[in-house]
């Protein structure tokens, strides 16, 4: 399989998520997959909504057989086969002021009944409102063997659709004014 492993890199700091992605990639390559590691540059000066929107606009869905995302806002990249593994202690990972549970509607869009997302701690599961049976603990990254562990989250084109449309119109108007 051709797998995109995506993670956000916050404020120019290469941290645990980058190491986790690299380890995940190595394991996947060893298992016979092709891997493309992608770092998204994000800044805590941008609101979570802006970060979410930027991620949603990236056309990853045109490429690869699957996309694995490790943190916010990489978890919102569009792809027909998206698997999310939250490894960070906070789902947002960057902004402790973000309202608890704000990520949940973006991720699940009311369709969480048949979804699973792997998480690294019960605290994340609680924030996301995951059902107990959906919570699976993970071994340390170095020990994790990739088989079929991560759940698939179907992409939903309706996600953020009004915001996308508004932003697109704003952009066109902005450029038109300067044409």
């Amino acid at each position: 399989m051709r797998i995109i492993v995506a993670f956000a890199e916050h404020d120019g700091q290469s941290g645990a998520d980058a190491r986790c992605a690299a380890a995940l990639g190595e394991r996947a390559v060893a298992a016979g997959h092709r891997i493309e590691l992608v770092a998204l540059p994000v800044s805590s000066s941008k609101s979570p909504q802006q970060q979410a929107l930027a991620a949603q606009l990236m056309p990853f869905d045109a490429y690869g057989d699957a996309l694995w995302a490790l943190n916010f806002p990489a978890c919102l990249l569009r792809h027909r086969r998206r698997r999310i593994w939250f490894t960070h202690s906070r789902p947002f990972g960057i902004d402790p002021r973000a309202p608890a549970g704000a990520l949940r509607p973006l991720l699940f869009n009311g369709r969480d009944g048949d979804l699973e997302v792997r998480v690294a701690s019960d605290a994340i599961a609680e924030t996301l409102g995951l059902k107990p049976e959906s919570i699976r603990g993970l071994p340390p990254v170095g020990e994790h063997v990739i088989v079929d562990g991560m759940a698939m989250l179907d992409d939903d084109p309706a996600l953020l659709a009004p915001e996308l449309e508004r932003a697109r119109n704003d952009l066109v108007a902005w450029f038109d004014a300067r044409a």
Partner: protein
Amino acid sequence: MKIAVLSTFVPFYRGGAEILADSVTERLMQAGHDARQFRLPFAWDPPERVVESLLAFRMLDLDAYDRVVAFKFPAYCVEHHNKVIWLFHQFRQAYDLWGTPYQHLPSGDEGARIRRSVIAADSACLVPAPRLYCNSEVTAARLETFNGRGAEVLYAPLVNPEVFHAGEYGDYIVCTSRISGGKRQLLLVDAMTHVRSNVRLVLAGMPETSAELERLMQRIDALGLRDRVHVDPRFISEEEKADLVAHALAVAYIPVDEDSYGFVTLEAYHARRPVLTCSDSGGVLKLVVDGESGYVAEPDAQSIARGIDHLAASRNRLAQMGEAGLARATALDIGWPAVIGKLLA
């Protein structure tokens, strides 16, 4: 200095631009800087993706970095207080390819709106950029023509020039390039029906699509050229490519209006091989001078065939022509010190 190198890319594909972006990052690090590359996709199918991608790059925040280096649309649209643009090419579908079979944008209102957005984005993000370089005269001329902005040319060097070496001159003309309509391997095949000398043609490179390859193979069969044209339709490593070039008679590279001089051209010169190109091959003509460092044919099969026969009959001058091409590249200051110096200035 903390530097972000921002480029667009196609996941799971590595072409010249991707390799070059990797090399820029590596060379900046070797120069003692904390360089980090970010590669994000850009899509134009369906067409509304163009504007979405543009918006996504505009929304990136790279303020944690002291400098941003960007190459292609829409990566160079990112906002940053200290941005250096080394322009490989604009979104040509909105410019010189608009109104041609290569437009790839709808022709109606929707296409016009997307085109307007691209041009406006370039006017707002590219034209006022204080540090802007182009990779060739062709790119610079296009920028001047369509956007009214001049720019200094900064040529892209080979990533690993030392790999390319000279061997014995063989009996084949080689074209090491992605197999695609724009590179015109079909025209080379057509030319082989007119070649009188005992020269073979070797086409080595990844096909852009399976249809391109199928068309090529069908043409070879239809012309009865199986014994004279060899196709190796896959990704060719640098070492394999160097070996192919090292034992060729000459290198053929006849793209349609190429933006840059083409790495293929410089690879040939490092291997002391002349280059066969066409009068409409764009930036390639910056290095290939007819009769000095290669042969410039008209873009038709008979003229190209004459070029192949001419090179086959010039065996005693092949090395001299290759040397002349390399000397011209040196005179144009094509090398990493020039590139890194400009990007850090």
